[in-house]
């Protein structure tokens, strides 16, 4: 203490303390604030919706936006289809939707279980670099089935996945070609049927797509152009009917949509159509795309099945699937669970993709251990020799070691790489460890420190008949623990954090450490995932510092004039 307890209570000293605390606190805020931004950013579940996160924790509107973005895979097209609204953005419905249509829909489902292929799976992003709930559940399910062996999985399913975290569900779509069956697709459908709860799904809604996506694209974004073309008076595309068979209004658009766009397996043929297809001798899909007349077609998506049922049994005209109300019910029931999912999913993703992926963790441990052991051993041995044996060349040797500090790094970079290659060391831990092992400054510090150890100890040990190796361990190393701890820490920090050279010197992914994987992840992932990865990687270093700061402070070597 600079001040003794009595003066410490004087006004001037108290003022001084206050000033120092104030400055330190302001400084601490600037240290912590960027961290806060990073943590906040890492909790953001989606790339698009929401501003300064994590607002979804407090505000339902933000939660809604994230929920919808995640459920509809971040694709407005799917969302507009499901909600049957042409200009919908990912946002909560303005008011709670009415519950009457819900009852009707529930009644229908109770009577007619929906076939798997008419349903879409929500919360499953097509990009492996984006965390999503269904993807992860599917990956975990596959892990269990195959005993976490990706090779077994690939062999079984004829796939080429590199890792479990890279598996995304097979793509499905309302429009386009009928998707060919594959073992992988079958397996996913199994999973979806048994493990994805109904509220996380939505219907492949042909009517919704027709109204909200297809017509605006075909005719123009404004309903006015539609009205002009067909002499109607709708106020929005939502009102345009999409019947099961060819309508009187906009029959040509309906025809284009069903013959050209809608997946052929979502369309059935009338008996006349079926007969004509048979006489032409072509397949279902080919007939629809190339030969069918609109009058020969019936749309067989779930929205049409439901509407026709509602009309036949309850006399309801043009019933729609109440997807907005369904989503409302699902989210109201599970707000807390979704908040928790959004809060943790980026971190889970990083853990899956980096920390527990392949050899990353093991490589990091090996590299860190090799680096620490190597640095301590090589530099201490040299310093020991210089300190204990007063060689004639002592200072010449010291100069040789120290002079390397003055070498311009740019000059040596390429030759070092060439040499590693000539010695066949690329893609080995040797390439990552050997070139940086000797540190002139460390040798110099250690030698200085060893010089200060009492000589009598060595003399006594010699009398006891201790060998050189024992003396090195029991006396020199033993008495230098704090300073060695500091050197070990800096070796840890540099080995743990190295990615640039790690990547150049070991291009083989099997040799990559956690940091290299993180660096690669940063090239494809969004900012929230990157922030999560930075926070996770910071934890080991932070723990080491918090646990070791006392030892570190004792081990720091300070130069003093002789």
């Amino acid at each position, binding site marked *: 203490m*600079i*001040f*003794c307890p009595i003066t410490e209570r004087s006004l001037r000293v108290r003022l*001084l303390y206050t000033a120092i605390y104030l*400055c*330190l606190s302001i*400084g601490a805020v600037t*240290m912590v604030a960027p961290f806060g*931004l990073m943590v906040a950013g890492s909790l953001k579940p989606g790339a*698009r919706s929401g501003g300064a996160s994590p607002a979804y924790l407090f505000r339902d509107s933000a939660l809604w936006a994230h929920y919808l973005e995640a459920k509809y895979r971040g694709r407005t097209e799917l969302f507009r289809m499901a909600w049957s609204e042409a200009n919908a953005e990912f946002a909560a419905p303005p008011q709670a939707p009415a519950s009457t249509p819900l009852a009707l829909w529930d009644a229908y489902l109770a009577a007619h279980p929906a076939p798997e292929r008419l349903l879409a799976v929500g919360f499953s992003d*097509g990009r492996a670099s984006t965390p999503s709930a269904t993807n992860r559940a599917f990956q975990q399910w596959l892990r269990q089935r195959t005993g976490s062996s990706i090779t077994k999985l690939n062999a079984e399913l004829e796939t080429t996945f590199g890792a479990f975290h*890279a*598996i995304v569900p097979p*793509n499905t779509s309302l429009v*386009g070609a009928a998707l060919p069956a594959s073992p992988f697709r079958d397996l996913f459908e199994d999973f979806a049927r048994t493990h994805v709860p109904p509220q996380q799904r939505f219907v492949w809604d042909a009517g919704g797509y027709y109204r909200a996506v297809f017509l605006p694209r075909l005719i123009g974004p404004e309903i006015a152009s539609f009205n002009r073309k067909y002499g109607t008076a709708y106020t929005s595309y939502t009102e345009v009917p999409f019947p099961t068979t060819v309508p009187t209004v906009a029959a040509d658009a309906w025809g284009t949509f069903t013959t*050209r766009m809608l997946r052929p397996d979502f369309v059935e043929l009338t008996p006349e159509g079926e007969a004509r297809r048979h006489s032409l001798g072509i397949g279902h899909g080919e007939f629809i*795309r190339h030969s069918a007349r609109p009058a020969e077609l019936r749309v067989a998506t779930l929205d049409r099945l439901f509407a026709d049922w509602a009309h036949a049994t309850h006399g309801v005209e043009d019933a729609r699937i109440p997807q907005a109300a369904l989503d409302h019910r699902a989210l109201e029931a599970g707000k807390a669970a979704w908040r928790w999912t959004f809060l943790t999913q980026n971190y889970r993703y990083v853990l899956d993709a980096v920390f527990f992926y392949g050899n990353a963790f093991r490589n990091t441990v*090996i590299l860190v251990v090799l680096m620490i052991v190597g640095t301590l*051993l090589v530099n201490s*041995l*040299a310093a020991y020799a*210089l300190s204990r*044996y*007063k*060689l004639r060349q*002592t*200072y*010449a040797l*010291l*100069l*040789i070691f120290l*002079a390397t*500090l*003055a070498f311009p790094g*740019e*000059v*040596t*970079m390429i030759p070092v*790489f060439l*040499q590693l290659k000539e010695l066949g060391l*690329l*893609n080995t831990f*040797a390439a990552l460890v050997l070139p940086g092992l*000797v540190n002139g400054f460390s040798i*110099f*510090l250690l030698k200085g*420190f060893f010089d*200060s150890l009492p000589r009598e100890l060595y003399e006594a040990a010699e009398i006891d008949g201790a060998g050189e190796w024992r003396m090195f361990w029991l006396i020199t190393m033993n008495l230098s623990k704090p300073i060695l701890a500091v050197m070990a820490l800096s070796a840890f920090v540099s080995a743990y954090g190295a990615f640039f050279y790690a*990547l*150049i010197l070991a291009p083989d992914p099997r040799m990559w450490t956690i940091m290299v994987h993180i660096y690669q992840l940063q090239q494809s992932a969004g900012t929230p995932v990157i922030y999560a990865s*930075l926070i996770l990687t910071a934890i080991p270093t932070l723990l080491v510092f918090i646990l070791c*700061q006392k030892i570190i*402070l*004792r081990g*720091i*070597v*300070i*130069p003093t*004039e*002789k």
Partner: protein
Amino acid sequence: MTAWRWLALFLCLTAAGIAQERVVVRVQGLPSETATDPASLAEQKVIAAFRKAHPGVELRPADGLRIQNLNAEAATIMMIAGGIAPDVIRMQFRSSDSYIRQGIVAPLDSFLSTAPESPLATVPPQILPVIRKVGPDGERHVYGLPLQTLVSGLYYNKELFRRAGLPSRAPRDWAELLDFAHKLKELGPKVHPLFLTSGASSGFELMNLIRGAGGDALCEIGPNEWEAAFDSPEAVEAFLLYYRLTRGERLAHRQARALTMEEMESVGMLFRYVGDTVAIDPELWGFGAVPKGPGGVHGSEINAVILALYSGISDPARREAAWEYLRFVTGPEADRIRISTLVELGLAGIINPASLRQFGFEEYLVLTPPEFEREFAQALADSKPEPYGRNCNLIYQELTYPLDQMLLSPTLREAWAAGDEAAQRGEIAAILHRAARQTNERMIGHIPPETMEHRRKVALGVVLAILAAFGGVGVYLWRHFAKAAAKLGRPVSGGSPVPWLCLLPALGLTLLWNYLPLARGTAIAFFDHQIVLPSTFVGLDNFANVLFDPRFWNSLLATLQFAGWTLTLGFFVPIALAYALHLIPRQKILYRTLYYLPAVISGTAVFFLWKELFNAEGILNQILRLGGFAAEHAWTEDPRLAMLSCVIPGIWAGAGPGCLIYLAALKGIPEEQFEASEIDGAGFWSKTRHIVYPSLRTLIFINFMGAVAASFHGATNILIMTGGGPNGMTEVSSLLIFFEAFARLRFGPATAMAWIIGSLLLGFTVLQLKRLSEMEFKTAR
């Protein structure tokens, strides 16, 4: 030891790989098996088809690391220099000439002549001169095939256009561009009518404008001899438009970082490439050709990745296999697979109608916007390739120098305020003229012999001075250390081999990994170093050219500034922090930990984090605006703040770890000293001066010497923060050396620079070594 077991394991694996009979081809750009975005899925299918067709060929990935702000070429060049070059190399137009000239890529003529149908038939005519070039043997050859042709265009935000009452199409000419932009601006302050890239690649949009005006950045003055032409009257018009859009009427938002999806919602128009597919969601964004300029053309740029064969493949079977791969992935079958995969994925809407038609997917044409095909055809018709001549690697960067100068010019600002068009054009022309001359000297490097003779003489002097300095210092240090050695008295070793055994690992490693590379590296400074072709000895020419390169001296100035800021701001922060932490009676550990927090984030991440904070819309500018300042530009792009923004993150992250050593030293001061002085009635300042300062003085001195040497580095961080801009203001020497070596492949001059800088630092290092030898080292108890 574990390392050896690993080593053995890997040797076994490698051996197992050799034992197989399959031909291994190392290629770049293999789709990652872990990627599942549509483009990668399509590419995976292409590769699967190739594997099926060629079961005897094994493809291995040969990608290097990707560095932000710099293309992937640094890693490729490292691999080539290290002799582990990929067999199939990916080249950019702008760097292709370097690869060809240096003999890195091989002519494809023999393959092309035997190919059943000529692959060249489907190559767009604009690209032919890029791939068919005069090689090092003086003959014209075809060196590569384009992978996917891209044309630059102007995308527009459909929603914002609708809200602004604009037609649903891109502007057709410059007048419309300005008109549309003004209408978009009326939507409110949050809407940015146009997005332009700032930073090292800001030349991209500018190039489109220059060409639209009827000019070009470079013109071919002889067979494969190019000259900077961006000082033409047409270019003046393009620069003027750029000024008008940015500084003048503030219609454009400039940012170095790519836009996030969120940010894109408030951007009206932006320049990007389009190829077989559009780059942005066609639901939200429409595409049009680059607006026509006064030159009456669209000025779009045509670009592609060129695949080429590495010239050093010695095994004919491997060369054949590499060609098969190259041919397959650039061929029509691969295109068909790509397109049909995207269609299967339900993405027909993003595909170029021409491609849909080509591969029989006419039924999906209804999904694609009708203007897509027309606009693409127009853009393609007027397009010119990205510059592909000699030393064009950094052409975008060369353009940023006059661009930054123009944006910063006070004369132009006044002329703009006065509405004096002649003065505006005059100032821009003057800036462009100067910049073009410099670019020419650097790119073409034509120097009259008598000038060169003079430069060599100067270089000789400098090299002799460096040698003398190193020699003198060596002798001085040797004597100094020998004097210290003499004090040791009689050697104690008594001829025992033990000390030498102990020294062996360290000594061996140092000689092998420090001294040998230094010697080999130094030789490069005297050669025109070539990666593949034999290097020629050029004597002192590298030094001569470096010494007369204004950019070298500019970088030296930047280095001194950087060092100055780092030392004045950064060096004393840890000392003050340590003293404060030492003084406070409570919560020491808490504060210590808080200040150490930044150091736990991995190195470069700190800089990426700060770059976000320095952004034009970043939190720092928001705070400044609250304080009433007109903070509009990103700190990294503001000439007054750019250098500071490179320095601050390092200081921020370094304060915590840096203060530890001082903390330890402060702890080591005996309590009695303070008690004694307290009795003498000494106050805080007196104690600081008479007790604390003397006990830290030595430490501060030693650390300062080290900090000086360290402040001469920092290239990676500046590369991340500013990339050297604006106008080269933060291009420190180590960054320039990095650019010279890995972007321009000029290893000779780069090494010469490294030596000149190294010798400047020599004095400090020697001083530090000498003082170190006079110290003794103790840990604080």
